[in-house]
């Protein structure tokens, strides 16, 4: 009886590691040859992703470790269009591997040259992403995140003026820090479900306009003390505490809005959940009141 039990135990333990995951390391880069602009499409469906400014002499670089049974790396530069496709696309069985958390982990570090005007389009699947976009020369930004947990940072001011930043999330937890440093004329955010923090802190060098739509979830707006803020709110079943904003007609605005040199106009539409207001200075110190 003991022998049978031991045999069963051995079988169970022995079959535990029957399926092995083979990870492959992939690197790609391109030297900078006088390019002044780059259209970059980054598709990344699963794993960990970091984006950051890279070396001045490299147009872009990606170092990835990927599951070769389910994905294949993409790195395709179109010299005529000045565009590059980077990332991991599904191959074979595709999708997620659900054996263990450790085995699931794909990782990629992506870097772009801070010296070229960058039109960046990022598509994320089930990704744990840390995107440091401060210090780049972003001319436009589009981020689409599915079931991701993402932090987007503008730790340094954008080196060029940005036309627009468009961020769309599905069921994601998203934090965007230092939108004031993004130098984007227009910021559009559309969220499905989840927890979202939009930090408008940073150095505001010009006025900006933000349109925010949030379906279900908790939205935290971290507003800049130095800029005049006007918030137009359309909500259905969402709680809202205007902490520090005063009502002016159909909108809420910060006390010094009319006199402010730089203004931030926010149109906010939310259905279910809550909207929380916080205030931040240029150093990122957060408070409940302006």
């Amino acid at each position, binding site marked *: 009886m003991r022998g049978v039990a031991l045999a069963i135990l051995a079988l169970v333990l022995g079959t535990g590691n029957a399926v092995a995951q083979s990870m492959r390391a992939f690197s790609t*880069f391109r030297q900078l040859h006088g390019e002044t602009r780059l259209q970059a499409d980054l598709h990344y469906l699963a794993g960990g992703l970091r984006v950051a400014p890279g070396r001045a002499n490299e147009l872009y670089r990606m170092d990835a470790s990927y599951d070769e049974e389910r994905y294949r790396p993409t790195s395709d530069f179109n010299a005529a269009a000045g565009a590059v496709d980077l990332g991991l696309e599904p191959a074979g069985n595709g999708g997620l591997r659900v054996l263990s958390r450790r085995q699931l982990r794909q990782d990629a570090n992506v870097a772009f040259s801070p010296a070229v005007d960058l039109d960046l389009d990022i598509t994320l699947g089930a990704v744990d992403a840390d995107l440091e976009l401060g210090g780049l020369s972003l001319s436009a930004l589009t981020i689409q995140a599915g079931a991701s947990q993402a932090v987007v940072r503008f730790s340094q001011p954008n080196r060029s003026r940005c036309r627009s930043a468009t961020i769309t999330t599905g069921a994601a937890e998203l934090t965007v820090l230092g939108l004031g440093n993004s130098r984007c004329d227009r910021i559009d955010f559309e969220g499905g479900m989840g927890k979202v923090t939009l930090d408008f802190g940073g150095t505001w060098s010009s006025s900006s306009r933000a349109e925010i739509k949030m379906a279900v979830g908790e939205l935290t707006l971290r507003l800049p003390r130095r800029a005049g803020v006007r918030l137009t709110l359309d909500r259905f079943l969402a709680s809202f505490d205007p902490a520090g904003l005063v009502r002016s007609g159909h909108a809420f605005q910060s006390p010094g809005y009319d006199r402010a040199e730089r203004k931030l106009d926010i149109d906010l539409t939310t259905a279910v959940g809550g909207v929380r207001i916080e205030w931040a200075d240029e150093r990122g110190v957060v408070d409940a009141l302006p």
Partner: protein
Amino acid sequence: MSGSGASGRRGSGAGRHIAMSSLIAGLLFLFTTAPAGADAYPRSIPTGSAAVELVRNFWDLVASQQGTDADRPASQAIPPAAEGTPPVDLSDLSDPVDVENRLTTALAPKDGAMRVTVPGGTARRGSFIVGSAEALEGDLLVVQGDADVYGRLNGNLVTVEGDVIVHPGALVSGDILALGGEVRDMGGEIGGEVRALRSSTVFAPAAAVAPAEAGALTVVGRRLAGVLGVFLTLAALGFGLVMFGRPNLEVVSDTVSHSFGRAFVTGLLGQILVIPTFGMLIVGLILSVAGILLLPFAVAVYGLLVVVAALGGFLAVAHAMGETYTRRRMAMGLVIGSPNSYRYLVVGLGALAVLWLAWSMFGWVPVAGTLIGVAAFLVTWLLATAGFGAALLSRAGIRENFAGRLIPPEALTDEYLWATPQFGVPAGRRPGGRTPTRGL
């Protein structure tokens, strides 16, 4: 001697003192210079790329020391492939995995020799150097060796199991791909894209590429362990159900026994309607607006109810099977130790497990194994469907309509049967308040 020993000790002590002083001075130097060095590096890069670079350089150094050309074939040209063999086009390196697959086929030795044709280019085996005064036209393939470029290469460069080193002053006009190696840019100019797959499967043995199929004994062992695991889990769940919900389990079990056909049809309909009902529930909650808040709760509860109904129903079927079998044995006069629900469950699950155990043992046999597997699946599905239906019919064991319990308990006593007319008008006044309701 003692004097010299003392001076020696003094000397060693002084030496230690000097060593300690040097160590402290060194540490102080490190502490004072390291922050400056850290500050000098742009703080906006959180990727630790400096550390990555450091590690990469370290491994480059290790690789350059380890990877001697003694392990590699001597530098030689690879002869062109025979007539009719497709050439390997290296003009497009945008899909490195595809290039690797093509090279795996092309570089497989034919008649003991490696032969490959690179259209308009060069194919080399072993390390290869493009000298500083050289200008090579066309694509270059280097197999099992490094490619050192000092001069000009007007084309793409691919290495298999080797590194690419682009030295200062060198020029590669096209793309570079290293399969099973890396690209070291020492200051040369690379006109195209650089790609590197650190490991390569081009020369990997076929057995290593395709995972070996497990033997029949291993398959049998795995399946046996799986079946035993599943049924042990079911037994544990069943014991819990008996312990905490015996009345409900017995009602569902009786419903299966007494209304098997009806339970099966209900279970079948239930299986078909599970998804549409879930969809209607979600849509209804969304349309009701206020119900949106209940969505996560409703999804969780619905899922839980379906699982409980399916699992509980299956266990009830096992209970019914075990009960029927045990009672028949008792009716034959056999003495059964403890004829209770625990025993019924074990017997029933054991009976259900028999088919799966048979499949575990003989599933590897061609045709017969498949037939046994299909039979086991069908029987399990049939019984699970009936169990699911019985759970629905009896509302998880709350209603006894189809459990064959129409006769009230008082009616089973001898006194009642003796005193109460069973037919005619007086029969309508029988005692018992558990008259079941009609219909579903």
